[in-house]
């Protein structure tokens, strides 16, 4: 058998069938629920193959990534980490989900996250070293407003000038990054930091620190708020008019307009809400796990949250699970990096594959395969 025989035989077999996609009369509920699970399984298989090509034991790698952080001997350390990483993802993804449902493509949550963090941290730094219980709530307020304002830019440009919110929101991420860098070495730099870039560490400032509520759980205010918002969004989407209006506008813009929904109103509301949540996520991060405004403060939560939103089916409870899973790939990925020497890019490849498989398998909820033997012609 030479190398070309196998492909040839496969080609012949493929040609015996004709495969076509047939649209279902109703989307299949089973497949809609099953696709995220299948996507995870397929990603594990493809990821395993990838690790094999890299010369690692695929089973060991998968164990280190997905099993050890939750059930391994170091899990007491990793489990709280899971919540800390999942909280911003869930917060941002909840906001994105309402945009995506309405067909408004906010790709710039990363920028809104940065601006929220900067605004919230600025409040704290302005009050330093004055102690008061009102400082942290004020930071939350200003952080949320900061994200909201940053999201209003694409919203207003879209409603006034019909610009494309995908491009505008995405490009504003880079603007936000430049502002972050400039502030980290300029206006917000720690005067006692020996000239190093970065602000004071808010973890050392009691009134501004987003500490663990219960020691050892990792649950800071952001985690609690993320879960609270998930429940709130569940009610909003299922019981409130806004949930109905976003769904209707996303699925059928013309019917939405006929129904009396103003597209511009919805753009402002949805982008504003998602910007606010991204801003809050940034605030909780800068006042807690990260502690300071510094170069490279943002690590891509705003982009990963897009995957989380879709993996969770744009459904609040699904998003909580997807956020935890995605957090696991971060932590497990780092662990695999340390223990097995896997490249850092492998984690991103992993996350990318997850979205890819999910979108590919999504076809099955609306279409089904039709196999049939080709008639000899």
């Amino acid at each position: 058998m030479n190398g070309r025989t196998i492909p040839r035989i496969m080609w012949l077999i493929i040609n015996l069938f004709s495969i076509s996609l047939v649209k279902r009369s109703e989307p299949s509920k089973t497949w809609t629920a099953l696709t995220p699970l299948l996507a995870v399984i397929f990603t594990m298989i493809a990821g395993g193959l990838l690790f094999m090509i890299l010369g690692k034991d695929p089973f060991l790698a998968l164990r280190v990534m997905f099993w050890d952080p939750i059930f391994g001997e170091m899990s007491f350390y990793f489990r709280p980490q899971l919540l800390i990483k999942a909280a911003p993802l869930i917060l941002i993804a909840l906001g994105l989900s309402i945009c995506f449902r309405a067909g408004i493509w906010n790709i710039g949550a990363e920028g809104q996250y940065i601006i929220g963090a900067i605004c919230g941290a600025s409040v704290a730094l302005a009050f330093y070293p004055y102690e008061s219980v009102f400082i942290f709530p004020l930071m939350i307020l200003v952080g949320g407003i900061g994200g909201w304002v940053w999201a209003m830019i694409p919203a207003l440009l879209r409603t006034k000038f019909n610009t494309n919110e995908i491009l505008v929101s995405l490009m504003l991420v880079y603007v936000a990054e430049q502002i972050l860098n400039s502030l980290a070495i300029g206006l917000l730099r720690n005067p006692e930091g020996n000239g190093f870039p970065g602000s004071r560490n808010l973890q050392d400032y009691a009134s501004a620190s987003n500490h663990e509520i219960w020691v050892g759980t990792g649950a800071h205010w952001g985690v609690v708020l993320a879960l609270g918002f998930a429940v709130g969004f569940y009610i909003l989407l299922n019981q409130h008019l806004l949930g109905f209006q976003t769904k209707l506008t996303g699925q059928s813009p013309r019917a939405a307009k006929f129904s009396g929904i103003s597209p511009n109103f919805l753009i402002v509301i949805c982008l504003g809400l998602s910007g606010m949540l991204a801003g809050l996520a940034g605030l909780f991060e800068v006042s807690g796990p990260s502690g300071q405004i510094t170069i490279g403060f943002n690590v891509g939560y705003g982009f990963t949250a897009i995957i989380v939103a879709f993996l969770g089916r744009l459904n609040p409870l699904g998003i909580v699970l997807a956020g935890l899973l995605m957090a696991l790939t971060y932590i497990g990925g780092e662990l695999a990096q340390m223990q097995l020497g896997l490249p850092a890019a492998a984690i991103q490849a992993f996350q990318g594959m997850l979205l890819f498989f999910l979108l590919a398998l999504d076809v099955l909820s609306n279409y089904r395969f039709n196999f049939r033997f080709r008639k000899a012609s």
Partner: protein
Amino acid sequence: MLKKLLEINNISKSYPGVVANELINMNIKEGEIHAVLGENGAGKSTLVKIIYGLVQPDDGSMMFNGKAYAPEEPRFARNSGVAMVFQHFSLFEALTVAENVSLGMEKPPSAKELSKSILKISEEYGLPLDPNRLVGTLSAGERQRVEIVRCLLQNPRLLIMDEPTSVLTPQEVEILFETLRKLASEGTSILYISHKLEEIRTLCHEATILRQGQVVATCDPTKKSARELAEMMVGSSLTAPARGKVSLGKPLLEIINLDLRSTDQFGTSLNKISLTLHKNEILGIGGVAGNGQDELLAALSGEYICASNSIKLNNIAIGNLSPNKRRSMGILAAPEERLGHAAAPDMSLVENTLLTARVRQGLSKNGFINWNKTNEFAKKIIKQFDVRTPGPNSIARSLSGGNLQKFVIGREILQAPEVLIVNQPTWGVDAAAAADIRQAIMDLATNGAGIIVISQDLDELLEISDNFAALNSGNLSKPKSTKDLSMDEIGLMMAGNAIKNDTPLEGTRH
């Protein structure tokens, strides 16, 4: 006896869940105009697609001109001498007539020769056409001529026409029929697909009637009444909608010099439209598709906002109010496009109930939706309008066209509107459902509502409306009493300024 040109033997074709054609047998003779008559979903389109090679049958065989015939692609069908004019044209607006024709040919001759042969054919068959005009400047009737000429250039033995008159004015229909009769007299066979009974009775020599995928009858349509044909098509006896005698009440809705610039490049702007709608009145608005029907409905429903004084309800200016404000005042509307405009295809009937019934039925409170109440109202619509569906949680696109239309119309009627505007209420709806819908509209008017029915089905408008007006390029003719109108008058109203349109206006070119 005439020679058989096409023989269809036991053709069957099924799609998952439906049998589109079952053991169809049919013969078309040379020089015959043969009608295929049936309701929407009876299997007409599938049959025609099989003959033209767009779809392969599961079973059965065909003979064309004495030889076995099984086209795998339209190309083979064309080479055998079968040509087809589709209901929806496939023409490029930015190209000339001749360029469009040449694009459809496998070996186009030189531009000059082609223009010559187009002119020759168009003169021979009474289809005036200028090969150098841009298609974008042509009317629907003229565009159809381009498609016909394109087919005739291939010297077809069999010409298939799919619902050809749906876009034509009565006068244009006459011209088309002359052409088809001449073609038939020269030996070309014509397969004529339609659900319009009168047309088939005046034009066709033979009719094959399909119902649920099967041939239920073959007859000479000239020897049957329209009613007999309809009953064969539907399979049951029909009661024509009827309405007690009513006199018009006080003026309800006034439109005064309504101007609306269309924002859509291919939309139609409305020019100084004026009309008065009374209580108990059904005002029919006719006209060929694309003359401002969608825009008029949108202006009345509130999707487009216009000058506040241009629309008045009970003397209150409402032209600048939102759809929901208008609904609360009693103006309801049902747009033409069921899927995607009147209803969201992938949402359940309950959700689609909320789409327009929220304000008038109080289906929400403080922004929270009362799903129980919405569900109840959806069930009421389904029950009272006999919507065939497994239940209110089925998604809209799983319903047949007729059933979804009954749902959409029922949703508005059960909200007890003062004024109802409907666009194409029975388009693509089977005859029984259409009769139900017309009856419901008439009952609503009898009970005191004013109704505007926009439709391209003249028979429908003449049957149900008290007054008739026609839209032409965004202009509305003066409404006239339907009783006193002749078909010729209606044609002239629909054509409006047809004479002006023949000289291309600079402004209409893109």
